[in-house]
């Protein structure tokens, strides 16, 4: 067993650095459903199987055989065939009822993953047992016709199962995420400010700062005092001269920097010594004096209805959020629990570790108070206090400033109101036009049971037919936008093909989003992603 654990650690080493052991564990407990093993579908699946998703179920009603080549689905089958053959030999073979061989081949890709296959079209499954889809952590629908993804979308919306639609259409990539509510504790922000509380020091920090006397210090100690202490000390000085107001604007901050600079020790000739810690202090003035406050995204979470009305059914995210809110409104005096980490800095180890402990101890204390609130809350809704772990609360407190809740609109909502289409069409080459074109080819499919341009001899007449579809779409939504003919020609040219390079791009992107959704780490896109492989541009829209 431990052997298995070590080998997993080795195998997943490079990704554990991104989402940690707990992220990996969530991934390994996930069950993902993927519909249609086309080029894009198999790329996505490959990118989920390699990092070790727990279980996947592949739903595909298409039989891959020579006969498929030449029918209406020519583009799909012809391109899925080689891909299927290379990666998911298992899929092909399963579709040809060769289960034994399939399992073996799958084991080769990643023996930690188990896979199931359902040789049925998603429409049939929706007809017969829509609850089939309720069991999954995530459903990924690839190259689905509009009617199918609309039906499936509403089933999954009701069931609260996240749904990711992916589509490679010629040189265009499209993804749509549909999830009612997706909560993220570890959003891994790129440039997070430190949580130092210099503007509102807590008692323990105040005492710790008081324990330093910069004016009566050996030179060695003076130049090894952490910059946080230096800033705190000079801030006191500043306050006494400035009505206890923080230096706010550039000019004041410059003056404050000057004040710190004047504190650098000088040698007998009067030239300043080389005190790197003071230089660090000066460099950090700008960010270190940011007023401590609850970020608006976190504030919104506190004010959300889900946070307000905790029931025994509430997910732990909301329960803990409520606990943190109680903390902020009581013991925290309007501030979040202290994060408890400080950046690396010039200081001797002893001073650094002492300072670090001041923050760390305070963070633990705050988290303990939050725990009490959570406990009381759980009790009030009749749940045992063990239903949230200490670990979970600590992680939550540490990330309290970075919490995110992603709420996507449903497909039904998207189809009723065209909120932002016109406003996003700021130029005729906005990626939004690609969205309109995809909607138009769906309309074409609805009318003609095939996509435009799949047969060379029909390209010319399809251009006109597609144009009609575009116009009727624009009319229906009362959109006064111009879709250039070039796009209509281009989309006919694509013939609904699934070029591999575009599929590879989208397969990587989709799998990445899937991992974000499964692990609840990092923030997934909301809600429509469009990729243009010709111009190498992409855009995200909220539709």
């Amino acid at each position, binding site marked *: 067993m431990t052997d298995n654990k070590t080998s997993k650690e080795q195998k997943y*080493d490079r990704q554990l650095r991104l989402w940690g052991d707990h992220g990996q564990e969530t991934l390994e407990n996930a069950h993902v459903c993927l519909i249609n093993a086309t080029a894009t579908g198999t790329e996505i699946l490959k990118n989920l199987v390699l*990092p070790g998703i727990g279980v996947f179920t592949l739903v595909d009603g298409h039989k891959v055989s020579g006969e498929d080549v030449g029918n209406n689905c020519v583009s799909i089958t012809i391109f899925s065939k080689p891909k299927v*053959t290379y990666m998911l030999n298992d899929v092909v073979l399963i579709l040809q009822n060769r289960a034994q061989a399939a399992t073996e081949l799958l084991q080769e890709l990643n023996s930690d993953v188990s896979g199931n296959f359902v040789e049925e079209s998603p429409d049939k499954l929706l007809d017969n047992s829509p609850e089939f889809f309720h069991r999954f952590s995530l459903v990924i629908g690839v190259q689905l016709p509009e009617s199918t993804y609309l039906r499936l979308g509403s089933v999954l919306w009701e069931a609260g199962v996240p749904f990711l639609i992916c589509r490679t259409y010629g040189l265009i990539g499209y*993804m749509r995420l549909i999830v009612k509510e997706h909560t993220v504790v570890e959003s891994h922000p790129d440039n997070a400010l430190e949580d130092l509380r210099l503007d509102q020091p807590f008692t323990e920090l105040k005492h710790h700062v008081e324990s330093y006397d910069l004016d009566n210090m050996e030179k060695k100690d003076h130049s090894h005092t952490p910059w946080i202490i230096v800033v705190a000390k000079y801030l006191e000085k500043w306050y006494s001269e400035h009505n206890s107001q923080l230096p706010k604007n550039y000019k004041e901050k410059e003056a404050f920097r000057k004040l710190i600079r004047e504190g650098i020790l000088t040698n007998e000739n009067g030239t300043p010594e080389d005190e790197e810690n003071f230089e660090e202090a000066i460099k950090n003035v700008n960010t270190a004096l940011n007023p401590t406050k609850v970020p608006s995204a976190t504030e919104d979470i506190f004010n959300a209805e889900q946070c307000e009305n905790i029931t025994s059914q509430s997910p732990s995210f909301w329960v803990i959020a409520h606990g943190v809110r109680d903390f902020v409104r009581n013991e925290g005096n309007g501030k979040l629990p202290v994060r408890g980490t400080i950046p690396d800095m010039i200081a001797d*180890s002893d001073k650094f570790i002492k300072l670090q402990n001041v923050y760390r101890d305070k963070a633990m204390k705050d988290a303990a108070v939050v725990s009490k609130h959570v406990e009381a809350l759980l009790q009030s809704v009749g749940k045992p206090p063990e239903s949230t772990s200490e670990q979970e609360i600590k992680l939550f407190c540490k990330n309290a400033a970075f919490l995110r809740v992603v709420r996507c609109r449903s497909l039904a909502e998207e189809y009723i109101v065209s909120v932002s289409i016109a406003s996003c069409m700021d130029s005729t080459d906005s990626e939004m036009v690609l969205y309109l074109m995809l909607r138009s080819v769906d309309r074409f499919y609805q009318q003609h049971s095939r996509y435009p341009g799949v047969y060379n001899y029909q390209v010319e007449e399809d251009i006109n037919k597609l144009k009609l579809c575009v116009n009727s779409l624009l009319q229906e939504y009362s959109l006064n936008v111009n879709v250039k003919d070039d796009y209509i020609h281009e989309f006919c040219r694509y013939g609904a093909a699934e*070029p591999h390079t575009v599929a590879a*791009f989208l397969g990587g992107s989709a*799998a990445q989003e899937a991992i974000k959704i499964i692990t609840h780490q990092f923030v997934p896109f909301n809600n429509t992603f469009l*990729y243009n492989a010709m111009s190498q541009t992409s855009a*995200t829209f909220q539709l």
Partner: protein
Amino acid sequence: TEVPTMAQLVGPLRKELADSLFSCRVLVVGAGGIGCELLKNLVLTGFKNIEVIDLDTIDVSNLNRQFLFQKKHVGKSKAQVAKESVLRFCPSANITAYHDSIMNPDYNVEFFRNFQLVMNALDNRAARNHVNRMCLAADIPLIESGTAGYLGQVTVIKKGQTECYECQPKPTQKTFPGCTIRNTPSEPIHCIVWAKYLFNQLFGEEDADQEVSPDTADPEAAWNPADAAARATASDQDGDIKRVSTKEWARSTGYDPVKLFNKLFKDDIMYLLTMDKLWKKRKAPLPLDWTEIQQIESSQEEACGTGLKDQQVLGVQGYTQLFRRSVETLRSQLIEKGEGAELVWDKDDPPAMDFVTAAANLRMNVFSMNMKSRFDVKSMAGNIIPAIATTNAVIAGLIVLEALKILNSDFDQCRTVSLRSQSNLMCTRPLYVQIEDGKGTILISSEEGETEANNNKFLSDFGIRNGSRLQADDFLQDYTLLVNVIHSEELEKDVEFEVVGDAPDKAPAPSAPEEGKNIANGNKDSAQPSTSSKAAAEDDDVLIIDSDEEPSSSTMEASPESSNRKRKHHDADDAASKRKRLDQQPADDDEDIIALD
């Protein structure tokens, strides 16, 4: 089982492009994370003739993303297995695999000229620099790419039309693969990272990601069973050390510096030596022995380097003593703190820093590297680059799209694509950036006093290194000379520099400015085998026109001529024809090109 081509996929791609997919030859440099994805995308897009080169063998930690490899392939050549795996699903492809370093001189400019396109899928800068230069010299378009965690980038490099890989200065690389740290360090930083890990393993918080012992899951372990016995013997020499954690073992010896020393620098190294495949193309490490080192006459060892104590480089014995002293200090610190205590590594904590300096330097010695001063060691540190399948898949998809544009000669369509963290956002910028004209730093001037301050400096102080170009202007004669500085380790004794290439007629007799002294003392990281250097002419103004530029490339951009002129000369601008042209046109606006091949 015929694979459809891009032409079939996107019907409208021109027939010529479709044909060129069948006929063109492409080179893929690297068969790792990006390489595996790239090979798949290439054959599925219809590329037929592909050559792939990779020095590495397959490691367990590759399997989370390098899908062409499976557990059973661990220890085998990446290039070879990648080829075989691709042929399984695309038997009609014509793939040649090289298990070799692209920096091997066999792969010369002629080799590169065999291809219409080169695609980098590399993980280190030295090789990237090398391929960049080779492609510029051969005038073959290059697609450069890289990923790190959720970040990625794809860039097209075309001589005379885009920036090259080395046009923009790169920040120091800070992260390294685990097996490089544990088994095959090749740069001082690898040893420093190892020593930091070692500190935590011995005295601090143990971290599974910071293993320091030889990687027992290393490819070769499973790959050559005959070695297994030898290896077992090697590890048995130190009892059961493999079965307990490094810390437990160290504790059981009472942190005996001699035992620690012999395990780390003798036994572990001997163990590594049993993995003989590792040393086929690398210099094998040389184990150190405590007793032998004690016997070295201390007078033989003198600290080299001048200035502060921190900046001196001690000898093996000096570092052995430092190792002993620091282990003893850290041991007593640990005892002082009581049972179960842990030390935190801190660069500003002298014994901790001493320990890392000593351990890193001893390891550098074992792996035949030049040792570093405490000062230098302190300024270096590092982690491991995270890597996942998804980013590689995205980047490899983008590479092939750029490849198609190149084959279609749509250079103006080429883009540099950056994948930003987390989100799926990409930012793109057009490529047609002219090479920068330099910073205009004046090195030597005939104007009295203007550059006096430079006289005692070294070329390296100005960032001049292998591949830097100097422009010398003689305003009186209206004569401009471009000098390519090339680093050499092989100059004869007392020879400070050497001029190669044909000196132009009108050039003043070359003489040595003071800076010349340092030429053979410069950049050791250079990827390029170099032959000599040339110093600037006395009393002329020397202007660094582009210190980051590659010697034989894009010379036209660098010269202060109009763009019309650049185009005109463009076709003559390859290494072979250059020298000829120099002979014929010794007049003004000439260049002295130092041969690289």
